[in-house]
């Protein structure tokens, strides 16, 4: 009976992906990426249950660690952008084009 969990993880992943595409604040975009990673964790753990081995659960821990490392780097970059431009909107960061 794991199908509902997989469905839930797919829904959460889609919400995250759509959020990345339509939200304009870099922090919110980044939170949506985190939502996608957490949806992945849910599906990894569900599949670990289905497959009857621990590899999925171990992977979920690694995804959490990587997500934490990503937060450190990401917030540092978003902070510098915000301090120089007084805005964290991804639309304002548009000096590089064509």
């Amino acid at each position, binding site marked *: 009976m794991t199908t509902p969990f997989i469905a839930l993880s797919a829904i959460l992943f889609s919400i995250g992906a759509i959020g990345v595409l339509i939200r304009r604040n870099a922090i919110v975009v980044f939170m949506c*990426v985190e939502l996608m990673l957490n949806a992945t964790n849910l599906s990894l753990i569900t599949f670990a249950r289905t497959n009857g081995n621990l590899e*999925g659960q171990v992977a979920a821990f690694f995804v959490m660690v990587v997500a934490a490392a990503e937060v450190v780097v990401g917030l540092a*970059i978003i902070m510098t*952008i915000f301090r120089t431009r007084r805005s964290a909107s991804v639309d304002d960061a548009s000096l*590089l084009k064509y």
Partner: protein
Amino acid sequence: MNTIPTPQIDYFQVAPMLIVLGAAVIGVLAEAILPRRQRYLAQVAISFVGLLSALVMAVFVFKRLDPNSLSPKRGQVVAMGSLAIDGPTLFTWALVLIFGLLALMIFAERHLEGGVLAFAGQAAAMPGTEAEREASSRGLEHTEVFPLLLFAVGGMMMFPASTDMLALFVALEVFSLPLYLLCGLARRRRLLSQEAALKYFLLGAFSSAFFVYGISLVYGFAGSMSYAGIAQAVAGSSDSKVLLYGGLGLMVAGLLFKVGAVPFHNWTPDVYQGAPTAVTAFMAAGTKVAAFVALLRLMYVAFGAIHVNWAPMIWIVAILTMVIGSVVAVAQTDVKRLLAYSSVAHAGFILVGLLGIRALGEVGPQDADGVTAVLFYLTTYGFMTLAAFTIVTLVRDANGEATSMKHWAGLGKKSPLLAGVFAFLLLAMAGLPLTSGFTGKWVVFAAAMSAGAWPLVVVAVLISVVALVFYIRIIVVMFFADSEDNGVSVAIPSPLTSTVIMIGTAVTLALGLIPGPLLDLLSRVGVFIR
């Protein structure tokens, strides 16, 4: 539920990688305990010793790989089935380490900015403020860039060796995170640099979320994270393959993002243009090598049995990448951006080589051909790209590097030598004979032909002609356009930068004239072990 066994790691085999990561950790420690004035020399020394000893160690491991050198299947899977130490891995390690050493030399260049590194004096100080001017007048510099470089190199070594999806994901992040930071650390044009870092980071995080969701779907299908387990499940299972194809698509999207293939290439020009040029040079050469070998290994070792199903997807991506990379490059007016699109086009040519490998179950002689071709192309591409971006750091005006094409007008008169070398590298990228670009394209096309992908080769040859147009355009601008006095001059670098340009150009010329020795070496490298 079974228990997790205690891991057994063969430290000798993975020593090159551990040396690099260890040197990076020592670098971080040095940053904390040494006084500011001593850090530059200490960091350069630590990085140099670390990379060089790792390179020596990699050669040593290669020599000890297998006494029976005739067998194509050499090497072994170590670290509980997560890293494969075989011929292609060790060749890639050597390549990444050499690119790391060359990148270290351009990172360490201090002549061009008047005695400081080309990285932000103090990244936390806002551009255009008193704090930034003070950091600049006190001659502050971020020597943290050297440990970051080492971490990226370490990740790039783990990435192509991974034979386990979890190791693959961790390696991907280990080399990506330092690169995100390095992109934002330029000393000049800091707004552009920070913006490049933001774009690279957000898109990179987005793509790795897709990648890891793909991993979870494939794991759901196969019940195993290891490539061997996946290969078994893919070949044997008669279950519904929805999870498999969904997961495969997402994983490939994540990897194609890293190599900058269309339709996942949009970050490439922005990031290559905004990042400090030394970082761009390293990223262009190193990331491509690591990501392509990882992609090859994943596709052929784990998903080789469903080759027929994914090959059409790669066909389309390869054609789109070559066409869009070359056609859009024609319209560029910035040299760094143009080189970025050229690297997108090169990714397309390498994908053609990827299709040259037919690993349908059995390992045949033509498999080795495909791997040989891709590794050869990656070698030639890496050296010429590193040298070309290094030359970009030398053409400067009062505001730092002058990368706009109009600033390059008449460069042939100001510095015939530099313009000549750059023209030679551009012709190599275009693939003219007597350069390594020609031999690289030749072996890749030959491999694809032998695998029966001739329509793709026809497209690739036609696109090479289009690509010639924009490479020639820069040469025309450099040598035949009128040069107004625009304040652009060619800076005289320290021997560090000159050495990188010399090595890159010499290798490009040598592999064009006598490709034999390297091809021989590559044919002894063998194939991916399973």
